């Protein structure tokens, strides 16, 4: 690895000068965390630095004692850590998500975490940060991935609800971020009936609402008795779509809101009848535009479909390197596990 600010250790990306890790996959003495998804924000570190929202989300999901000490990183402010200037900048992924910029002398490196460029009523928009080395995700790093306008996808959902008023629309959505974004979009589209949720989403729904995000009336399915909820919209973790739990509803229509729904095989593998392409990650056009925008001379790809992005960067004269980091990109399973333990 060319730069000395960050190196790749078994625990994750490591900064020797500051003696800290970014989004480590195993417990470490000092960690900087980009966002609250379970594959990036693990419990058991010594000291954790993150945005106030991310710290609150970690406490909600892992308990208040998720780390020995916590430090809030206000967005845009510079904090010195062992000769490294650290600053956090909005990543547009989920509430509290941030890119982390590390500067040492003339060299600046930005760890984007997960990010997206599309508008999201539940979090601050991504802010490009000029840098020498940009560390990007590539969850949807293939040119086939194009995320259409999320409002149009939500309109598809509401059309389907109108077409099948006797059926329950069961929408699989990750518990952190996607569920709240969908809820907000559904409200923006004018749906004013209560939204029903799986119990695993309850805490995070409340947390988002407490941050002033308009989600309207949200009711836990468990609180409705044995109601079959025909004509209603129920949000649940993706893993619950095929669960015995889903059979309580009226002839449910399985919907899944995810960037993976772009390909038919993925939808069919999950038995999804109504695929909704709504993603909190950057699609191909956003990834490539963002890399160009940062003006970086080198891009490192943490996880996802790295090969295509690395190839593309080469054709643009940008140095590129896949990190093949294992353990990221599992927010599906991570969220499912969180749901199971919630």
């Amino acid at each position, binding site marked *: 690895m060319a730069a000395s600010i960050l190196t790749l250790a078994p625990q994750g990306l490591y900064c020797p000068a500051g003696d800290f890790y970014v989004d480590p996959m195993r417990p470490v003495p000092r960690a900087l965390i980009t966002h609250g998804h379970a594959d990036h924000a693990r419990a058991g570190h010594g000291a954790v630095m993150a945005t106030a929202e991310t710290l609150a989300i970690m406490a909600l999901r892992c308990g208040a004692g998720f780390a020995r000490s916590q430090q809030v990183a206000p967005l845009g402010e510079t904090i010195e850590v062992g000769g490294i200037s650290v600053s956090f900048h909005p990543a547009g992924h989920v509430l509290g998500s941030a890119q982390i910029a590390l500067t040492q002398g003339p060299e600046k490196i930005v760890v984007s975490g997960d990010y997206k460029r599309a508008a999201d009523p539940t979090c601050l928009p991504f802010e490009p940060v000029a840098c020498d080395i940009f560390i990007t995700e590539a969850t949807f790093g*293939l040119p*086939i991935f*194009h995320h259409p306008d999320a409002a149009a996808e939500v309109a598809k959902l509401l059309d389907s609800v109108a077409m099948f008023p006797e059926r329950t629309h069961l929408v699989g959505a990750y518990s952190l971020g996607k569920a709240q974004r969908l809820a907000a979009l559904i409200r923006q589209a004018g749906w004013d009936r209560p939204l029903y949720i799986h119990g695993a989403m309850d805490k995070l729904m409340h947390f988002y609402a407490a941050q002033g995000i308009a989600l309207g009336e949200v009711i836990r399915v468990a609180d409705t008795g044995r109601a079959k909820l025909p004509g209603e919209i129920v949000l649940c973790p993706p893993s619950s779509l095929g669960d015995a739990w889903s059979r309580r509803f009226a002839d449910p229509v399985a919907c899944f809101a995810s960037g993976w729904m772009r390909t*038919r*095989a993925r939808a*069919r593998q999950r038995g*999804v009848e109504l695929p909704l392409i709504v993603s909190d990650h950057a699609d191909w056009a956003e990834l490539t535009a963002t890399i160009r925008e940062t003006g970086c001379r080198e891009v490192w790809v943490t996880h996802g479909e790295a090969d295509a992005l690395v190839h593309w960067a080469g054709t643009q004269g940008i140095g590129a390197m896949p990190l093949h980091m294992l353990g990221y990109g599992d927010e599906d399973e991570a969220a499912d596990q969180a749901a199971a333990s919630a």
Partner: protein
Amino acid sequence: MNRFAELLDRVSYEPSRNGKLRLLAHYFRTTGDPDRGYALAAITGTLNFANAKPALIRGFIADRVDPVLFGLSYDYVGDLSETVALLWPAATAPAEADPDRRNAPHNTLSDIVETLAATGKAQLPRTIALLLDRLDEKGRWALLKLITGGLRIGVSARLAKTALASLRDCEVNEIEDIWPGLSPPYLPLFAWLDGHGERPASDTAAQFRTPMLAHAIEDRDFAGLNPAEHVAEWKWDGIRVQAAAGTGADGVRIARLYSRTGEDVSAAFPDLVDMLVDGRFGDAALDGELLILREGRVQSFGVLQQRLNRKTVSAKLLVDYPAHIRAYDLLYENGEDLRQLPFAERRQRLEVFVTRAASDRLDLSPQIPFESWEALAAARADPRSAGAGEDAEAVEGVMLKRSDSPYLPGRPKGQWWKWKRDPFILDAVLMYAQRGHGKRSSFYSDYTFGLWRKGSAGDEIVPVGKAYFGFTDEELKQLDRYVRDHTTNRFGPVREVAATVDEGLVLEVAFEGVQRSTRHKSGVAMRFPRISRIRWDKPSRDADRLETLEGLIAASAREGSGAEPGR
């Protein structure tokens, strides 16, 4: 085209069989001719274009998308049509401004089908590109599906015919019976289904009759069955066929060989057609197994495969791979439909028929005498000494038929049973994985596995085979995760995973047989391998050795397929 694209789209996402039937029936009921006929042809795989071929599509996407990015995308999506539909660059000029586009064919399905059929090779790429520009993503996908043939939307020809039958409330087998005489766009068929046309005549001279299939028998089934009411035959490891011959209205002999799905495969078997055309065969339809016989001995399925899926059949192939039918049943003879007769009576007629036909390409499927289930189990375990003799290697189990069973189309309950030989079992180590296609695309679902052998530097693992099914969807996810987390090397779409004495995943592989092969590094080829269990618990060093697999070849050569290791 929009309606057709909409149909394919909705059907492809519909998980339930009944839901698919509803969608198909609705489409056939509400769509006009000839569009619905072409749609039916596309779904049943009978639409073929002389010039519009998949290679053409690969060619012109290569002009528009970086080939490396295309390759990676195709590898991920696992479906050529879908990949191109997703990657196709949005049209740049509005249609009205471009004279070529203004003159492009209209977008009904029939227009498109007729255009594709009529356009010459040189013009075709431009025509298709224009169509792709005009269509939306769904339409592009449907058009490309048409061109590439296999729709892969989870609808079999049988399901489409079942939907047709629902239009008229008739049995699907009524459709099957007339199907071989029909061709796209099926106007007489739809007229009849709509209730304002005659039932299309079945091509009676050598018509296809839906075959009768057997259920796999389970241990608990035997308790309810009386050996005295059943007869047993060997289950031959060939291709189930139906041979039919008759005399047309003009006095000309007609002979056809059908696959069990009703596909006419006569062209690939002129040697058998010669026998059927012969007057001694008469007007008849029989059910049997297609085999290769050399000097009276049944050859393995591997040998038979050399004769299958060939467009042209050379004289040398006919000599080296002589085709043969081993007769199971007689369905029709000289104007008489025998299918309602009890099996025992049909068998007597069949014996007389085979004797009279006196062809060295036709013989009777021998019966296995047995008094008790124990006796039949012993025969199944050792076909060689139970009458199959030298042909034992081509036996894949036994068939059990009620003596009084009529010949019923489809898979009726409680009439016929198949009792397959137990598979061979070995524990192998996962070595490489590749992404799958169709339903499993984007998952690492094709697994190459190996066995231990002594190498120059101690023990090494040598690849012996590849399997891509046998596991559940849940296990597939676990295997995919395992591959991603244990990748040690990447070769294009293939990932190498750690496979050493200390690290590696053991897969229990079931297979039907093993042969010497020069095409495989290990020198052996397994037949029909599949993953029977994932041995998360077993250390890789305890997996089986190549010598064990080689021993099976020796054993089966010595003792026939009676050798049953593993279980």
